[in-house]
């Protein structure tokens, strides 16, 4: 069961799973988020440092934070690239993480409901996050950075599959 409108170029891994990737705009969205957070923290910490100590101290703090923001940006690309999902006949696989790598298998029949959310930054880039919920609180199946139309298609597909294969608790 392939997605009607595949995301980014699927990549086949050594187990024969064709991974679908989030949109390339996800990296941009993450960069904007990181930039905003860094900017705000810089401003706040720099002001506090500047007012409480000297102007040089405030500037120094701000520069250190800017450096930290730039370093974290280096890791963003790898984190975004780690996301992937694959629709198989009976279940959905989602993988993520660089430092701690995770891979979840969720049978369609276990799906309780599906959320599609989009924050302001995601929305401005035409992205959405899709999340599936099962009866288990520990299940995590979140796919960020889907194209809005693609998210809607995927949601409907998953809902149909879930209904067809639904199983009791």
């Amino acid at each position, binding site marked *: 069961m392939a997605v009607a409108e595949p995301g980014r170029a699927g990549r086949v891994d050594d187990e024969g799973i064709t991974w679908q990737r989030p949109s390339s705009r996800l990296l941009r969205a993450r960069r904007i988020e990181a930039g905003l957070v860094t900017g705000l923290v810089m401003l706040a910490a720099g002001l506090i440092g500047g007012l409480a100590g000297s102007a040089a101290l405030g500037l120094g703090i701000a520069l250190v934070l800017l450096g930290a923001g730039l370093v974290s940006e280096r890791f963003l690309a790898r984190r975004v690239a780690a996301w992937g999902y694959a629709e198989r006949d009976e279940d959905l696989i989602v993988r993520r993480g660089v430092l*701690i790598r995770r891979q*979840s*298998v969720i*049978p369609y029949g276990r799906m309780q409901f599906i959320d599609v959310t989009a924050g302001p930054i995601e929305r401005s880039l035409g992205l959405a996050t899709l999340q599936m919920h099962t*009866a*288990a609180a*520990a*299940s995590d199946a979140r796919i960020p950075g889907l194209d809005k139309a693609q998210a809607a298609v995927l949601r409907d597909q998953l809902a149909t599959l879930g209904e067809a294969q639904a*199983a009791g*608790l």
Partner: protein
Amino acid sequence: MTSPPSPPGGGAAGSRDDGAVWHRLHPLSPVIRAGRQFVTIAIAVLVLFVANQHHADNDLVIDLIVLGVVLVGGVISWLVTRWQVAGGVLRIDTGLLRRESRRFPLSQVQAIDVIQTGLARVLGLAEIRLRMAGAGASEGRLACLPRAEAEQLRERLLSMSRAPGLAAAGTPAARPGTGSAAGGSAPPGRATRQDAAPQGAAPQGTAGQSATGQQAGAGAQASERQLFRVRAGRLAASIAASRAGAFAAIVIGAMAAVVATTGKPGILASFLPFGLGIVLAVWRQFNGEYGTVIAAAPDGLRLRSGLVETTAETIRPGRVQAVRLVQPLVWRAFGWCRLEVDVAGPRQRRENKSESQRLRAVIPVGSLAEADQLLGELLTARPAPTRRAPAGARWKAPLTYHFLGWDGDDRYVVASRGRVCRKTTWVPLEKVQSFRWVQGPVQRRLGLASVHLDVAGKRVAASIEDRGAAEARDILGRLPALARAARSRG
């Protein structure tokens, strides 16, 4: 809507009538509901009285006002609450300003509990709780009914929830149509069940000892087969040997030492609530698990327990999400263990936070042989966690390595972990909600990975920890298909 068609006394004769009749709760219900408040206030007054003997009067008045408000609220709540069973659905209407009508499809019931607080037992009343799968609010409460009637209603609700085609798989096929068909087919079975139900059960409420009450109840329900009964002495000893018990002993010992050395008991006044809380926690555990009796009945596994407040639960077959065997360090020396089951739905005592990590204990404390026997009743097969973790796991988990292991067949997966407290979890594959493969940085260096099997609820996951990377891959590749086969087998 504030004047129900049923006369106020209708509750007593309720369950013999046609299902569609509206029933009331017992008129003494507000007293029971205020009872918990009453006990709390009594303790608070006592503490205040001991702590500062002069200023207690003012607080007492406030407490009495609180009690009065609670009572009046209870009476109003009783006046506007009514319930009926019709078409395979239990319906509870309540609320004065904000009317609330809740429907509980009986085919979706996970378990039904009959609970008696100490006060309720004196008055011969009992509360019924329906546990549905889902979050905290999805709990149906009927508090309170006369005890005999509560037992009958439980039997009846259970028999309706087991109606053919509905209960077997617990499928979400609770369509109104099939539900009403089930309700229609129920009356014959219901009638016979009522004949078999204990008529002499009501006076038990006045019997002080729960053990005798449970004995009588067990004797009257001839279809039951008793599987396990906890020994009171062993329970007390096991609690003393547990973390909570040891903590309580240390605190009490420290208090006694302080009093002995200083000779002034007054010093402790400010610590009294703290000490009381610890003692209460231990007492609550003892009270809750005292006299636990497990019996197999056609409608499921029956659990009865409690010293002052008694609880009777029925866990329907096929509703067990996971079974866990817990063996704390000290208990292992005595060959004791604890067996817990996980049933979907909220825990029955939400106010007890320390217990929320814990599941319903079917064996609060027992020998391994007893646990093994009950496991045989709960599971059709019992794989043992014999597949040890690879040697590399020693570096990642030097302590827990000793007990790390898993195994599985085509129905169950078992995984064990823990060093101080060994926990072995069995999960039926048909209940698994999702599979998670996780590899942390240390694990990657050592070529290891873990696989978690999540079941409904947030308390249990069978964690197959620290397997070789290839084996973990293989588990993740194989288990979903096995689980699918188990689900379709039903």
